């Protein structure tokens, strides 16, 4: 039995995951918690957020996120990859700024609309 804190939402439910019983999750208040609990034992994932260089606007950085979660152990490598990304204004929220970040199959997207 493993005790975890669900990080999906600010409620921070205390989960118990039974590794011996097909990773059965208890203590969650919603289905997202169940998914998180299972993943956290089998293959932990996180959404990466950060910023990339922006050209052609009064702001020097454009905020970005991975469109979905990526394997937790890829975080440092993926964060370093952000240093090599350049975008040009205008940018729209949701625009893909880098496809398939570090072979995760997940795209990096802009999170702010910035006009030149």
């Amino acid at each position, binding site marked *: 039995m493993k005790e975890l804190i669900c990080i*999906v939402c*600010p409620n*921070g439910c205390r989960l118990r995951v039974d590794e011996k019983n097909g990773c059965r999750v208890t203590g969650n208040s919603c289905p997202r918690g169940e998914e998180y609990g299972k993943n956290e034992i089998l293959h932990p994932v996180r959404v990466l957020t950060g910023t990339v260089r922006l050209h052609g606007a009064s702001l020097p*950085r454009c905020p970005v*996120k991975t469109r979905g979660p990526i394997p937790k152990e890829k*975080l440092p490598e993926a964060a370093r990859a952000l240093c090599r990304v350049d975008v040009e204004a205008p940018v729209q929220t949701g625009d893909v700024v880098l496809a398939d970040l570090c072979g995760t199959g997940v795209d990096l997207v802009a999170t*702010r*609309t910035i006009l030149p």
Partner: protein
Amino acid sequence: MTEHQLVVIGGGPAGLSAALSAWEAGITDILLLERDKYLGGILNQCVHNGFGLHRFKEELTGPEYAGRYVELLESTAVRVKTDAMVLSVSPDRTVRYVSPADGCRTVHAGAVVLAMGCRERTRGAISVPGTRCSGILTAGAAQRFINIEGKMVGRRAVILGSGDIGLIMARRMTLEGAKVLACVELMPYSSGLNRNIVQCLQDFNIPLLLSHTVTDIIGDRRLEKVVVSAVDEHRRPIPGTEQTFECDTLLLSVGLLPENELTRALGAEMDPRTNGAAVYENMETSIPGVFACGNVLQVHDLVDFVSEESARAGAAAADYIQNGETASRRTLTVENGNAVSYTVPQRIRMEAVDQGVQVFFRVNRVFEKSAVTVTAGEKQIARFKREHMAPGEMERIFLPEKLLALAEGETITVSAEEAEA
């Protein structure tokens, strides 16, 4: 002097939501004043995710959450002035502001919503000893440097205080290639959300030193090291427990202070427990027609609740403009009882209560299985069960009108207690 139905001060999530809900309630002449170049307030620098799970049922980043509101606002005829700093508000609702485009202007409003947000406590406010070297900044200032300006603030950092901003910055600094040596917290518990302790500290093996504080700061021009000591139950440093961390950066995450210079100068009654204005059930301050919401009223952890509270303030301002003052023949004062540090609202006008009243509060220590009780004199009028409560997490209860009607005296008291098994 120009006349507007409603003037909203501050274009963060609170001001945006208040302006929108007043618009939806039928107010067509709204002026929103924001001193920054962009709308969105503090959310623009909060590039991490975790916003909007309540409001939009999706996990958004700060800029995305703000963007949704800005888009909604653009579909209305609310007039927005950015780069416009409000200098004063007077009790007759005259608002003075200054901007490069308009110079110094005075406008009069039928109602005013105060939504100026909050500032961080600085080194001065908590008096850390040591030399005055560079490299010491608040976590929010570091967040602005890194996320908005694209400038890294240091290579080896210690974080004092375990508020959410400090935790978020521990992760942010690490992902940007810095080494975060420790997060040091004076209290025996963290004031940040559990989820942030997990995903910002534990994910990166950053130690959280509870019941510890910084007792010396050493550096000539730039910070060179900080000394950290354990503290006893009276929060006094224990001699002999000193450890030294070599670092070039110390981030302070030691709390937020509502930015209420305008509110004080206006003469609105303040609540020393929240450092915000004292408000009625509809977010109205002691000055008729002036409302307050968001972090300027009480420091929130969740932007979703800021939006919700502010929507109520906006709707109430609309009601004031359309129907005039709220009757107040009978007013209940809400008091904080056992282990509760404050409540918002502070007062309830019984005639104004429609279906019920939402009461926000914080507890002053950690509770496991527990209950929140509302009493009027000796009589308990409501009881709510909780599995867990902590000072870092704002609590709220909804008091239906039926229960409030049971209160006979002039005060009701909100208290917290351990639940008997």
